[in-house]
């Protein structure tokens, strides 16, 4: 259906960018963008044209906090059936990981979709099934839609959903690095459209482009940002027109709003980001694992969580260092023996860098 890997067109875009003789730093917030950039060598190619692109906090598994992981470990240890997406299972918590708890006899299931977790609950009426719901706006509507369909009462959700635009604001407000433009995540944008990003361009004068996931998509996105900078513009443009509508997916937004409300929440590597988390509304409290198992979870409320010793995932997620600049990268921290979440998740920049390992 798509032929967005056209080499001639890619060369044309790159040549045009090179001619402009720029020195710019862009940030994207999506593991799938990072995968395309590194897999096809676009990161190296663009660097030679004066454009550095780094991944910010765009990996839901990576930004999930040690406290949220500990919540799941407690529930698994206390006999609940814990279901979540693949990568989440391997993220080390302070004492263990869900995968390790599985080997110790706890009931931990890896699922492809929240509906698979509901099926487990339907088939096992004697078990309490808790779904650890991670993901941004792309995934949150699937959780919301499932809860609106009245799953069985032995099913509950531990919401770790977060939304992207407040994190972009947080990065800019922290002021730790100069960002000349944002490449916005295409699939988050299929849901939210382009409007929620507009305040970033307006208030911070930062050019933005919503991009798809093929090599030409990303090269065009970079070209669009460079054009905005050359022409002294700062607006939200949409490169991924085949999938992203200005208004987004209104049906999905309505479903999300019915089920979730915004809360202040901490992201790994960041302080608390105002109104960036999605918690279940009161009328869904019978499905809210944090309310149902409140007593079991109180033990961690006053606990201070530390990052693993030497782990610099926080700095990677804030775009301050590249994966390779972390002293643990590739020696103490590898995909089969990860120290931090950025090496666990296939969306994490350390995992991506390691998988397509190259010396440049």
């Amino acid at each position, binding site marked *: *259906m*798509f*032929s*967005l890997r*056209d080499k001639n*067109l890619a060369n*044309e*875009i790159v040549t*045009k960018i090179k001619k402009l003789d720029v020195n710019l730093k862009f940030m994207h917030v*999506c*593991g*799938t963008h990072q995968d395309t950039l590194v897999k096809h060598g676009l990161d190296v190619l663009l660097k030679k044209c004066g454009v550095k692109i780094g991944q910010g906090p765009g*990996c*839901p*598994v990576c930004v999930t906090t040690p406290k949220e992981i500990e919540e799941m470990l407690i529930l698994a240890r206390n006999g609940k059936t814990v279901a979540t*997406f693949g*990568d989440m299972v391997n993220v080390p918590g302070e004492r263990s990981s869900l995968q390790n708890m599985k080997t110790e006899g706890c009931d931990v299931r890896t699922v*492809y*979709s*929240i*509906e*698979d977790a509901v099926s487990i609950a339907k088939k096992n009426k004697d078990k309490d099934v808790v779904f650890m719901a*991670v*993901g*941004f706006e*792309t*995934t949150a*509507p*699937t959780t919301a*839609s499932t809860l609106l369909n009245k799953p069985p009462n032995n099913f509950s959700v531990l919401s770790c959903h977060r939304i992207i635009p407040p994190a972009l604001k947080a990065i800019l407000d922290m002021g730790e690095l100069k960002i000349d433009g944002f490449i916005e*995540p295409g*699939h*988050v944008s*299929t*849901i939210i459209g382009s409007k929620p990003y507009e305040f970033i361009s307006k208030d911070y004068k930062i050019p933005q482009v919503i991009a798809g996931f093929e090599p*030409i998509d990303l090269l*065009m996105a970079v*070209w669009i940002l460079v*054009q905005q900078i050359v022409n002294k513009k700062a607006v939200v443009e949409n490169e991924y*027109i*085949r*999938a*992203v*509508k200005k208004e987004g*997916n209104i*049906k*999905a937004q309505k*479903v999300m709003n019915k089920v979730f409300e915004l809360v202040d929440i901490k992201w790994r590597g960041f302080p608390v980001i105002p109104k960036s988390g999605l918690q279940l509304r009161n009328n869904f409290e019978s499905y809210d694992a944090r309310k149902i198992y409140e007593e079991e979870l109180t033990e961690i409320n006053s606990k201070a969580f530390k990052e693993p010793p030497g782990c610099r995932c926080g700095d990677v997620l804030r775009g301050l260092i590249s994966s390779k600049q972390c002293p643990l990268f590739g020696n103490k921290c590898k995909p089969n023996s990860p120290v931090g979440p950025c090496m666990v*998740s296939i*969306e994490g920049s350390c995992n991506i860098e390691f998988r397509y390992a190259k010396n440049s």
Partner: protein
Amino acid sequence: MCLAIPGKVISIDKKKEYASIDYGDGTKRNVNVSLVDVKIGNYVLVHAGFAIQVIDEKEANETLELFREMLSTEEEK
């Protein structure tokens, strides 16, 4: 995590809740389509078992042409 895969709608159930999606490589899967308005023959983006958006086929077919046009317009300036 936010990976979404395009596929073609082959059939839709009566409640318009689930559709059979063909990913073009012989793989077919039942997908929840309650978040989108779809017709048979549409292409959708599927994420975690749910269709999250219908792909605009016209825009998809014209994407490359549009890019070429954008690049050449800039040249003329």
